[in-house]
């Protein structure tokens, strides 16, 4: 057996193949990106253990990720918030974790996306399961997993072929195989979904420019929101009583130890906004939450600065608008005395 020869042949072919693979995907317009996975989230969650009462945590769904820009927040306050928001998630599991498993008593900004915040407390439901899986991962992560994460970062930053995007944008073997469609035995009703955000090491996330410049691209995402709205309309009603009770209980504990909570309703537009108004009217949901929570709260519709903001895919702000939104929102909060212990001035 001439294994040495075989190894040389194998390595040569492999280097040529993987280089070609990398160049091919770059030629298709893809760039290396970080994966917004549980390990990346857990690093930020780990920072909460050492956070002081000057620190600010951001929680909520993807709207908080897209709309609250850490650079702008830091420029206005001197404090870089810890981004703990999670896509497609209710903020309640993560808020519950921080309140009950840490001694943090600074400020927590909770983004309220009505369709997710008031959705459920059922552990099996996606808006609960996704953030809870992050919390569980943080609690159970092993030293090996931590090492894997840090070792993977330089690779993720430099190689496109390692992209962990799923669905239509996925280029891993499993995703590529999953795109092959033969016959119509079972039809997946969900429209194809693009990953339209790019995340940084501290989970500062920006909308991809193509979402703003390419209407067809934005429309493909809108179709997904429409699909979810249709599902929500025929699915179980929001569990307002359950979610509010759960949140208010944790809120009391947090307030009692000196913590501050700020509720924020980030912008939405178009048909999604209309759907939210119909399914989860402001007076019934947001206003009642604010009334019962007795904390500072900011709804984008209440401020002239935000009346012209438009979400290209109905649910999230473009990178430029997110920067503006963050800057103005922080200014409003400061003027309102919601943010204390600032490091500026």
């Amino acid at each position, binding site marked *: 057996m001439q294994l*040495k*020869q075989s190894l040389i*042949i194998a390595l*040569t072919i492999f280097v040529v193949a993987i280089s070609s693979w990398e160049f091919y995907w770059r030629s298709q317009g893809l760039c290396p990106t970080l994966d917004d996975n549980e390990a990346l989230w857990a690093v930020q969650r780990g920072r909460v253990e050492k956070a002081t009462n000057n620190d600010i945590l951001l929680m909520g769904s993807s709207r908080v990720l897209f709309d609250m820009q850490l650079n702008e927040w830091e420029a206005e306050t001197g404090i870089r918030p810890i981004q703990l928001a999670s896509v497609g998630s209710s903020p309640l599991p993560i808020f519950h974790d921080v309140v009950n498993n840490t001694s943090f008593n600074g400020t927590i900004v909770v983004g309220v996306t009505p369709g997710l915040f008031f959705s459920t407390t059922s552990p099996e439901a996606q808006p609960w399961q996704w953030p809870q899986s992050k919390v569980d991962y943080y609690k159970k992560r092993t030293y*090996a997993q931590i090492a894997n994460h840090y070792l993977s970062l330089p690779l993720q930053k430099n190689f496109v072929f390692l992209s962990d995007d799923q669905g239509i944008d996925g280029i891993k*073997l499993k995703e590529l195989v999953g795109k092959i469609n033969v016959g119509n035995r*079972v039809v997946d009703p969900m429209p194809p979904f693009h990953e339209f955000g790019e995340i940084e090491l501290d989970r500062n996330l920006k909308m991809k420019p193509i979402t703003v410049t390419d209407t067809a691209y934005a429309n493909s995402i809108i179709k997904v929101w429409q699909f979810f709205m249709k599902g929500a309309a025929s699915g179980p009603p929001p569990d307002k009583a359950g979610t509010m009770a759960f949140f208010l209980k944790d809120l009391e504990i947090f307030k009692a130890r000196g913590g501050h909570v700020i509720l924020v309703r980030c912008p939405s537009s178009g048909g999604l906004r209309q759907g939210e108004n119909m399914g989860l009217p402001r007076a019934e949901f947001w206003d009642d939450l604010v009334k019962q929570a007795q904390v500072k709260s900011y709804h984008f519709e209440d401020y002239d600065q935000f009346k012209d903001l438009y979400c290209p895919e109905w649910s999230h702000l473009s990178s430029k608008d997110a920067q503006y939104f963050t800057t103005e929102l922080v200014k409003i909060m400061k003027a309102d005395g919601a943010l204390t212990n600032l490091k500026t001035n």
Partner: protein
Amino acid sequence: MLFNSLSFVVFLIIVLALYYSKIFNWNGKKRMLLFASYVFYGLWNPPLVILLWISTAVDWVTGKKLAVEEDKRKRLYWLLLSMFVNLGFLTFFKYRDFLLDNFTAVVNTYGYGYKTKPMDIILPMGISFYTFQTMSYTIDMYLKRTERAKTFLDFALYVTFFPQLVAGPIVRAQDLISQFYEEKRATVNQFLWGLFLLTLGLFQKVVMADTLLSDTVDTVYGSDKILNFWDAWMGTLAFSGQIFFDFAGYSTCAIGIALLLGIVLPDNFKYPYASLGFSDLWKRWHITLSSWLRDYLYIPLGGNRHGVVRMYSALMITMLLGGLWHGAAWTFIVWGGLHGTYLILERLQRQYIPFKITAWNGMFLAFTTFTCVNITWVFFRARKFDTAWNMIKSMFYMQADGEKILDTFTIIKVSIVIGLLFLCHWFMRNTSLKEVSLKKSPWALGIIWAIMFFLIVIAQGSGEQFIYFQF
């Protein structure tokens, strides 16, 4: 630490660099390997290394005493001490909640209304493997079938040797400890063959099990619907492939990694899906466990030396306990019971309806065996009896209008993968990978190697855990 992870790549490079450097003498290298093995295990959960230490210390002392003690009663006490500690750990960490649940259920049938709170204890990774390995040493010492390990270092390394620590192969003392007595260096061919096996093992795990099959299994067995015939079969066939590729992949990696160090580990799989009957299956599937069960359970229970009834009882008890070894649930016991039943029926067939196996009926027999094995996998994979029973009903057309949940391509994909797997096992059943590789040109082997490596790299995800880690 998982073989299919970046941290393991770095770990292995450091271990190999130290192993082949001139910094250490042989004893130093063994100490380094032992330390590396504790790091390998401890990076998962450091406190649980203490269990390894206790198990090592108890069996080392027991072995030492058994080597000099001639009093039969005292020898038995030493053996029982080792069994008590090892099986005690296993019972406490793996079977405690299961035993408690069953105790509660039985007590409550008499109306006591007894309530227990599960302790939610973490299951130490690989505990079933390393306890069986250390117990084999002590039992062999008791039966005077093996020599005492020369030094504590050799014994500790035998218990903890990282390539096979968490999921086997379960190695006997005489096969591994003796390899630690003299300095080992892999020859160039051994080293490269080890690399090839590591690549093949990772290919089986990452590409075949995780990329091509796992989603289908999760979809089918995670469904709460009554399934269509095709969906139920495809999910089960996919699981038969997934568990083979996952576990055989781990064993192949372990054998390859050990070979990089010049250490030879025994084969654990020999193309089991082309088995001609169930005795043949257990000589080909998880060989080191089935031979452990044969030598330390079936034979001590009487084996085939005390008549038919005793033999069948021994066979059934062995398989039931073999099922329980895999997991603390009744579904695993049923899995073991089905295999026990198959083995008994096979022996009855041999006695009353003997026939000669030819090339033609052989393939039919292999296919029949594979089909029967798939039925057992239903109980192995399903977490609940309801799920298992629904699957069985769907697979045997007992469900009218079952739900379709798999798309056409998935059905084609699973059929091709499992079809090729079966044919591959059939054509390889009387040969070995090494034999076949020797006949291949360096170019052919190089191209196959490159394709596997390339597919591993473009498939690699977040690093799925090996299924057998939970056992």
